[in-house]
């Protein structure tokens, strides 16, 4: 009687273990599947985010070059002269004979100027 009950207990134990292993493996496979799906989803999301950033960069660069063009058009000589005329700014180009060219040695000139002032100062002190 005891031997019989012992045998059935052994069989139950094996069956229980089998069920446990099956459930564990099912949970593992399921978990692995869910993990894979989640990872794929993350990959896809990251890829899409990168793609969006990429697009954004392209768009920003496009706007920048657009801005460069607008600036270049706005600052062209014709346009600036036109604005000068329209806004009555009265700006004129310099004329060559308005310029005074310093043809002598600049350092020497400055030295002489400072020396002159020292000399004049000493003279005034004496007086």
């Amino acid at each position, binding site marked *: 009687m005891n031997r019989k009950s012992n045998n059935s207990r052994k069989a139950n134990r094996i069956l229980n273990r089998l069920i446990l292993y099956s459930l564990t493996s099912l949970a593992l496979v399921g978990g692995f599947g869910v993990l894979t799906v989640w990872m794929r989803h993350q*990959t*896809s999301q990251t890829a*899409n985010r990168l793609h969006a950033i990429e697009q954004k960069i392209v768009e920003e660069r496009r706007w920048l*070059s657009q801005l460069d*063009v607008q600036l270049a058009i706005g600052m062209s*000589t014709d346009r600036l002269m036109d604005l000068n005329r329209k806004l009555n700014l009265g700006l004129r180009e310099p*004329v*060559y004979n308005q310029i005074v060219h310093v*043809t002598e040695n600049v350092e020497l000139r400055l030295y002489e100027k400072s020396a002159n002032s020292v000399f004049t100062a000493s003279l005034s002190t004496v007086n």
Partner: protein
Amino acid sequence: MCILFGYGAIGYRLVKLHVVDAPRLTKELENSRYRVIPLNSRRGDIFTYDLNGGKELFATSQTLLEVGIDPTLLKEKDLGKLSKLSLLLGKELWDVEKGFGVVENRLPDSQKSGRERWRLLARRIDEAKYQKIVDLEISGLYGTRKYERVYPKKSLASHVVGLVRRDGESVFGIEKEFDFYLNGQRGWRESEVTAGQEMAQFRRRYVPARDGMSLALSIDSYVQHQIEAELELIAEEYHPESACIIVSDPYSGFLLGLANYPTFDPNHYAKFDQSSHKNRAMTDPIEPGSTFKIVAASAALEEDVVDIHSKFDCSLPTLRMPNGYVAKLPKDWKTFGVLSVEGIVTYSSNRGAAHLGTLVGSEKFYDYVRRFGFGEKTGLDIGIESRGILHPVRNWDGLTLSRMTMGHAISATPLQIHYAMASVANGGLLMRSQVVSRILDTESKEVVTYGPMVKRRVISSETAKTLSQLLVKTASPGGTAHGAFISGYRVAGKTGTAQKIVDGRYSSHHHIGSFSGFFPADDPSLVITVIVDGSRKDMPVSGSGTAVPAFRRISEKLIPYYAISPKEERAAFALSGRPTPVETSN
């Protein structure tokens, strides 16, 4: 049992899908979702640096859009937005409604079943305007982006910069000659697409587009503007057939300005006559006239057959050539008696120049003509360039030498004449003509830097200096170019008034007036050449009457701009940073 059966069924299906049917299914999926998405590269910019180091764009690329519609997607609620759309597109409302197939403010029934899924509505819409169009949220409205070339400075330096057509083909100028650098490389993405959107996670290969490199020119936009304004003045007054002005730095050979009349706006190139696209300074050879006398004078001085005080009887109507032939000499513009070499150059005596040529001899004179760069290209890489016409000595007749010394019997491009004068200005070196100073990558790092390139020594620096002194007298009170005199500055230069050949004969009514000069003569900062082909209306075009005043006006504008000092030493800040040329070849 049921569980096992279920497992079995799932396993079978998985094996069938992933092993047995996998190749077929993968292929089907690839066919429906796989795409190679091309990526356009952006063409590089063409720009110059101003005196403060700022960039000035001459050519750039911007995206423009073609706006089109899918008429089948238009909804009733969008009909009210079509009037705003027509305003943004700059079109009439009926035109836009026609595009959508709208009749009497309602969608026809046949619209939904229509096969046409794309209709062009407008071309060349800029980004800002397109954004406003997108904000209207009209169903079925799409834009296709495309890079197009824009020239913000319009016609400024258009012959130098060149042109890229709407179809992307570079036609001439720097755009064509430097296309290899400017163009860049297209890239692509191999990926999967669904509902018109790329599924980035399935991207397989990504070859990024490589944008084109940018070119920095030596052209100065202020100089360019001044010479183009001057050409406009000349055109208004003389109605010439063509005219050109060239400005360069004599020591480096870099061009600071090159302008032609007639000109064109590359943004609207189709509206201009094809002949206005020609860079005449490079393509159209002309008889140089008296500006060519610098060759005869240089040759005679360099060969030591004369000094500046040697005297010649310029009243004689004939001259015995080295081959014994007695050539009849053309009259001078005024009757001269005995003139020194100095007088021949200062008063531009044709007969005197013939005397100088005879002393040098045909072979040697030809050699000097070649050394000055006539009969060969200047090397300016911006398109087709003429070599001019220079016959070898064996093809010369008895008159050729006497005529060539005064600038006839030879054809030269304005650029050749300019660089011949520049070689006198810089002390006897013939420089290679250049306009591109740097090539930069997309990060603005220099990839190639061009420096001055000496082609050869033409004459000794002593001869160049002597000739400069003679040319100063020419451009001083009493000389033929006295109108070029600028108070306080020593200007050197030579006028030329060449008769044009009309119907096979020299015409006394059709002339080409020219002046090529430099200043300050002792250490030149600029070489300026003005050439006016005034044959159109029999206008009284001449070197001294037309080209010299233009030279003077331009010089007066450029002196304050470059802070050119009248003193003999070069001002420290004028044209600073340009390296001194080093002779590299013979």
